């Protein structure tokens, strides 16, 4: 079973040289720490920055320079700033190669729910709906089951949707899965020490198992 860092490390392997990437809050943010050597990527922050760097050293923070999670950050050489309209313009026109974000639920059709739980205080979707509706490649980083032990990989999402038919791949603590064109979670890899049966039990939506399922390499 993977921990959060394991999930981030596995997702990092999906990133290709030269990619422009938007990372959501949580596990996706960790991915930046595990980009393979020789691979250079540019991070987009939807509040208006390309070329986001690491957190500043203490005392060097700049209140005018934050990321979409409102954290103080830095810029790297070659960065550029722009307004929010252009930022989502480049997202909608699919110039951002990869979006990695968390989810509460994913359906076997690639629908995603990650912004609202009825009855709980709703903070808003931020840029998530724009990102999932536009990105050509979306990877979801999440736990396979929620805290109540219920599967988050479902036939249909039970929570209000963020976007429909948009998720391409899911990396959890148990497995790597892709959404099959005909619907269903196609199992691609098992986490170390996890059996296909473990994954079957944790997946409520249709699970597609074809041939031997390899254990993932980190």
């Amino acid at each position, binding site marked *: 079973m993977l921990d959060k860092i394991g999930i981030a490390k596995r997702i990092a392997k999906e990133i290709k040289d030269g990619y422009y990437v938007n990372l959501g809050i949580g596990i996706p943010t960790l991915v930046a720490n595990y980009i393979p050597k020789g691979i250079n990527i540019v991070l987009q*922050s*939807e*509040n*208006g*920055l390309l070329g986001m760097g*690491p*957190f*500043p*050293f*203490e*005392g*060097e*923070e*700049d*209140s*005018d*320079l*934050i*990321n*979409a*999670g*409102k*954290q*103080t*950050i830095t*810029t790297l050489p070659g960065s550029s*700033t*722009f*307004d*929010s*309209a252009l*930022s*989502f*313009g480049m*997202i*909608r026109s699919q110039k951002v190669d990869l979006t990695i974000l968390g989810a509460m639920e994913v359906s076997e059709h690639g*629908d995603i729910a990650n912004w609202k739980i009825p009855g709980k*205080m*709703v*903070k*808003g*979707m*931020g*840029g*998530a*709906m*724009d990102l999932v*509706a*536009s990105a050509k490649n979306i990877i979801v980083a999440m736990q396979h089951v929620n805290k109540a032990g219920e599967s988050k990989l479902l036939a249909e999402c039970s929570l*209000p*949707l*963020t*976007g*429909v*038919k948009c998720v391409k791949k899911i990396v959890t603590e148990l497995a790597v899965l892709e959404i099959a064109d005909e619907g269903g979670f196609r199992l691609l890899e098992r986490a170390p020490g996890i059996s296909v049966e473990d994954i079957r039990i944790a997946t409520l939506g249709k699970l597609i198992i074809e041939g031997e399922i390899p254990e993932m390499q980190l």
Partner: protein
Amino acid sequence: MINKVVANADEAIQDITSGMTLMLGGFGLCGIPENCINSLVNKDIDQLTCISNNAGIDDFGIGLMLKKRQVKKMISSYVGENAEFERQLLSGELEVELIPQGTLATRCMAAGYGMPAIFTPAGVGTEVAEGKETRNFDGKEYLMEMAFDADFALVKAWKGDTAGNLIFRSTARNFNPVMAMAGKITIAEVEHLVEIGDLDPDQIHTPGIYVHRIFEGKDYEKRIEQLTVRER
């Protein structure tokens, strides 16, 4: 030349009245029009509709207007970083319309570009799409979203000149340029007000034609919401 320069925020916002729709620039607490907000809080007006990506925190930004119960409705993409906001929302005192962040930005831009409506895929198939016209282009579904119509836009820039030209700094740019273009009347507060000719024409982010009033703000706090640092 008509003088766009006003003395301070009080003068700039003097004709904002109860019930108006305001756009307020900024992302979180970054790049918000602090001086204008403080003046609004000191003014006896309410029932405002505020278009702003966020709603401030309990003791800063739009949170101060909420505390004074000046806001009837927020149109935002992400809110609820403060307790008073949550209380008013749950009690029904405050109306909130949540819309996708890109849709928010693009509806501002549409107003500034004289486009009555735009198409975006954001929200298709979700509750955001309810009651909205959808349209298929090349096999993909889009929502038609309308340009915003705001009485005033309040923005904050780093530098500005007396002709109203604005330059923003780093990610404090965010919604400010698109809102500056979208207000019927646009008020810009700047950290540094300079004379015409002092700014390079090629470096101006918002041409002065979009800005009706401008002043040099004072006592900027520029608070940080999430201070994150790394080890040396």
